[in-house]
């Protein structure tokens, strides 16, 4: 080895400037110079943008910045947001009329954007993961279907897919009265969108909720007690199963108790109607229809049923309506609901004789009864109710009443984003799974793990650390691309802002506001996902 340590050959003498400026080749000096250069660039960039902004703002003129007292100030740039919006929004999460201010319309736009973004992210992760795993399936058909899905989604533009799904799929669906009902379930797919049942919490829901809390406490206690016994005896006892079964028993018991105890729902009827409870109503209806059994109501003609129907006034979409409808339907009593938005309106209808009864919560009924002329001739019949009642969509005339719905624009936008980004995510999931070495799967199989356990316990946890960073990018793109909804008239934040801009001319203000909100949404998303990413990182040496 000693022979190798001969001195290096003489280097050629460098020119003078190279020796003098030699420090410039020091990596530390280069690093500092690079930093300084970059800061200068940033300052120039910011100045250029800021100057441009100020220039354009002043070009727009003072009219853009009118304060309420009539003076001009940049501080009043957003004062116009308090004035009346004047336009309608087709799909809102909260009540809205066109006399509400701009800021409220903007707020509803944000809610719509968030609704699509959050639902989209959740459903995309399901679709993307499924398609990604299907891509690697050993089943030829499954993997080929997944491949075609991915290629189709990746190779066509988002906007064209959106138009196709909106005009070609959703709006091509049948009319409401011929709506598609998958498997006969109370779900209606039509060109008006998707109508589906929605749960309504009645006043006894609180009692049931208390039982649920009790059940959860029970689960914890069972877990601890059985866990201790397990440690003592060293024998497995089904902690989870025991706890779950006890939980279900408590929840079921609570359901019955809550239903029996609560009688906050009622029906207002006149004494003259001879209705004293639901049983007497049944007798009256038997007389009225001339049947021996209300189960035979189908044998009557439609006109006869309509003539005999029990007429009830209700408040639109109230739990009382759903609850009473359910009970009447179960007893086979034909009925007709007269829906109105306000209690006094319903009471007026009842007083006029439009309906024989008024169903609402007991407190509302008591208040309304006192407004009637001779209140002693009216009485309130209590009605039992379950903690949760399902409001089921039913066709009434040309509209659906009850339940919840996705409007066609919302459904089309959500579906498009899920399918498009599901395809992108599928490839990321596939790459993640394939990044886990074959040896990992072999070790899992050799240990006797089933294929499901192998995927769940060994492959996916490792694949996730490859999937998450680009996956964050996909979810952020999805959240921002909710703005393509404007193309089919979905009133998201961008769409509402666009209308506001056209009406008020405040382009600059609204773009700044929108960019801030989008940035805020993106930041929250990425903080959450990065936190998760940090948690699942591998420990290296």
């Amino acid at each position, binding site marked *: 080895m000693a022979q190798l340590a001969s001195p290096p050959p003489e280097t050629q003498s460098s020119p003078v400037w190279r020796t003098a400026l030699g420090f410039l080749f020091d990596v530390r000096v280069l690093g500092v110079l690079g930093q300084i250069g970059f800061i200068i660039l940033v300052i120039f960039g910011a100045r250029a943008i800021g100057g441009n902004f100020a220039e354009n703002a002043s070009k727009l003129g003072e009219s853009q910045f009118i304060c309420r007292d009539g003076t001009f100030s940049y501080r009043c740039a957003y004062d116009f947001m308090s004035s009346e919006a004047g336009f309608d929004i087709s799909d809102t999460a909260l009540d809205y009329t066109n006399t509400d201010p701009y800021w409220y319309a903007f707020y509803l736009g944000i809610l719509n954007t968030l609704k699509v973004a959050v639902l989209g992210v959740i459903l995309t992760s399901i679709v993307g993961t499924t398609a990604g795993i299907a891509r690697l399936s050993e089943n030829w058909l499954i993997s080929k279907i997944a491949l075609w899905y991915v290629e189709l989604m990746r190779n066509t533009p988002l906007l064209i897919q959106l138009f196709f799904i909106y005009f070609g799929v959703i709006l091509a669906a049948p009319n409401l009265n011929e709506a598609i009902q998958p498997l006969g379930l109370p779900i209606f797919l039509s060109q008006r969108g998707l109508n589906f049942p929605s749960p309504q919490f009645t006043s006894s829901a609180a009692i049931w909720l208390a039982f649920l809390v009790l059940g959860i406490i029970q689960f914890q206690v069972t877990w601890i007690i059985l866990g201790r016994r397990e440690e003592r005896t060293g024998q497995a006892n089904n902690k989870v199963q025991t706890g779950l079964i006890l939980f279900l028993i408590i929840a079921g018991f609570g359901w019955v108790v809550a239903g029996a105890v609560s009688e906050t729902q009622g029906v207002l009827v006149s004494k003259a109607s001879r209705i004293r409870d639901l049983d007497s109503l049944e007798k009256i209806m038997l007389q009225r229809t001339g049947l021996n059994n209300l189960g035979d109501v189908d044998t009557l003609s439609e006109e006869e049923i309509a003539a005999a129907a029990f007429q009830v006034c209700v408040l639109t979409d109230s739990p009382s309506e759903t609850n009473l409808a359910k009970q009447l339907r179960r007893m086979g009593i034909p009925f007709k609901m007269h829906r109105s938005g306000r209690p006094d309106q319903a009471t007026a209808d009842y007083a006029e004789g439009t309906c024989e009864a008024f169903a609402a919560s007991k407190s509302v009924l008591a208040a309304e009864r006192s407004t009637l002329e001779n209140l002693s001739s009216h009485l309130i019949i209590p009605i039992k109710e379950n903690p949760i009642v399902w409001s089921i969509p039913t066709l009434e005339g040309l509209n659906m009443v009850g339940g919840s719905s996705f409007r066609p624009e919302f459904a089309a936008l959500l579906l498009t984003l899920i399918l498009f980004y599901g395809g992108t995510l599928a490839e990321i999931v596939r790459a993640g799974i394939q990044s886990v070495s074959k040896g990992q799967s072999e070790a899992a199989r050799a240990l006797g793990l089933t294929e499901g356990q192998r995927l769940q316990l060994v492959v996916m946890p490792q694949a996730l650390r490859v999937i998450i960073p680009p996956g964050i990018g996909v979810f952020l793109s999805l959240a921002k691309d909710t703005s393509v909804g404007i193309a089919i008239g979905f009133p998201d934040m961008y769409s509402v802002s666009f209308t506001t801009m056209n009406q008020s001319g405040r382009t600059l203000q609204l773009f700044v506001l929108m960019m801030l909100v989008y940035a805020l949404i993106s930041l929250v998303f990425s903080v959450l996902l990065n936190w998760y990413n940090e948690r699942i990182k591998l420990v*290296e*040496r």
Partner: protein
Amino acid sequence: MTMEGPTQSFVDELIICENVHKWFGEFEALRGVNLRVKPGEVIVIIGPSGSGKSTFIRCINRLEEHQEGRIIVDGIELSHDLRNIQEIRREVGMVFQQFNLFPHLTVLDNITLAPINVRKWTRDHAEEIAMTWLTRVGIPEQANKYPGQLSGGQQQRVAIARTLTMQPKILLFDEPTSALDPEMISEVLDVMRDLARAGYTILAVTHEMGFAREVADRVIFFDAGQVVESSKPEEFFTNPKEERTQLFLNQILHH
């Protein structure tokens, strides 16, 4: 280091292979392999690379599928029946050349994953057994580290403990020391030697001739997908019958 013995078996021959054939596309990797292994037998398989020795032991727990012939492990025939495959995999442990520890789990979780999920042991029971095996392979203090924090030799010993905690009847070693630095080979071989003496049924593919000479009941020479020679170690190394065996032994012993 004393080892607890393996689970008792009630069959005369733990592994029966009859005329096993395996193709990779056009290439025939196994050309009619016959082998019978009695409980407690230690068999070392040697042979040139590409001779099919790894493929063969991977067929025994169905990491590779054989296309012809029969393989019967502990009285259960390997077929396309998933339940049979699962049953056999529970009874056959395998140690790999590349360790294949799960990098996202601690050493202890690596070991207890299969006992908890496959054997349905409680976590406490699984951890207790895991710790006795970690103690026996000499690294109980590493239980809560991650595989990435251990040396190669330590990782392979964890892999052995992971396999043994499942209480298999048969141990398959697929070149367990080939990926190790020279100074770590002996720590793994020590563990294997003790397992052999404790009465485990072992099939090991290895190039460690010293190990073969010392603990093997039989040495099997594989070439071109066939068993060329099978004899006791002394006879095998001093007086090989087949010409191909002599050639191979000359190459590896006098390099």
